[in-house]
C-alpha cells in the first residue's frame, strides 16, 4: 500500500510535469468575472450568454433544510438531461449569487457536490445551462441558524 507520504512525493512530481506542460486544461479558460459578480439568477445566466430561465423538474438541488452553520452548507446539483453545457450552484442572498460553475464534458455526469458559505437563510439553486442557451433550474430554501452558545 502506498503511504500518504509517497502519494505526496508523487503529487509534487505530477505538479511539476503539469506545470512544464503549461496546464493545458486551463489554456482556454477565462474566468467569467461578470458571472461571479452578478447578484441574481437572471444576471448570472445573462453573463454566461444564456437566454430564457425556467424551473425544471429534471434538475435537482439537494441541501439541508436547516444548516447549523452558514460557513459550511453542503449542496448537490444534478440533472438527467442531455445536452447540458454548464451546471451552476447559486445562493440567492449571498453578496454574489454564483458559488460554482462546472463545465460539462462527455466524460462526466451532470452531478456535482460542494459546500457553500451562506450569510443568511436563502433560496439555493441548481442551474443547468443547456447547449441551446436555455437555463433550467431547481431551488430550495435553506435556513441558517446559530448553532452554538453565541459566546
Amino acid at each position, binding site marked *: 500500500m502506498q503511504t500518504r507520504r509517497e502519494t505526496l512525493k508523487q503529487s509534487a512530481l505530477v505538479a511539476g510535469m503539469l506545470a512544464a506542460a503549461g496546464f493545458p486544461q486551463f489554456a482556454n479558460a477565462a474566468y467569467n468575472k461578470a458571472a461571479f459578480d452578478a447578484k441574481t439568477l437572471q444576471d448570472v445566466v445573462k453573463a454566461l450568454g444564456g437566454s430564457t430561465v425556467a424551473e425544471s423538474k429534471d434538475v435537482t438541488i439537494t441541501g439541508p433544510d436547516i444548516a447549523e452553520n452558514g460557513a459550511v452548507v453542503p449542496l448537490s446539483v444534478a440533472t438527467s438531461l442531455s445536452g447540458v453545457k454548464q451546471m451552476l450552484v447559486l445562493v440567492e442572498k449571498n453578496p454574489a449569487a454564483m458559488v460554482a460553475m462546472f463545465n460539462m*464534458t462527455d466524460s462526466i455526469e451532470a452531478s456535482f457536490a460542494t459546500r457553500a458559505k451562506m450569510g443568511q437563510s436563502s433560496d439555493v439553486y441548481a442551474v443547468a445551462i443547456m447547449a441551446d442557451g436555455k437555463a433550467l433550474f431547481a431551488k430550495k430554501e435553506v435556513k441558517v441558524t446559530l448553532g452554538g452558545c453565541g459566546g
Partner: protein
Amino acid sequence: MADPMRIRAQASGDKATVRVLMSHEMESGQRKDAAGKLVPAWFIQEVSATLNGKPVMSAEWGPSVSKNPFLQFTVKGAKAGDKLAVTWKDTKGESRTDEATVS
C-alpha cells in the same frame, strides 16, 4: 506551498465517484480581522481534473465556496488502476496538483 489534497476515486460499474478535499483558506474578501480590517479575497478560482492525462472536468469557483473545499463528481468510463489528477489554481496564481489511483 499549499498542503496536498486528499483525493478518493472509487470505481463502481463503468464510472468512478471522485471526492476531493482541498486545503485552502477561501477568503471571501468580506470578512474583517480582529482589528476590524477587511481581509483581502483569496480563493480557488479554477479547478480541473484529468483521467489518465485526458481533461474530463473543469470548474470555476467564486469566493463563497467553503474553507477547505470539498468537491464530488463522477467520471464515466473510469476503472480501477486509472490515474485521476486534480488541479486547482487560486486568485494569487498559486496552484497545486495531486493524483490518486482509482480503486
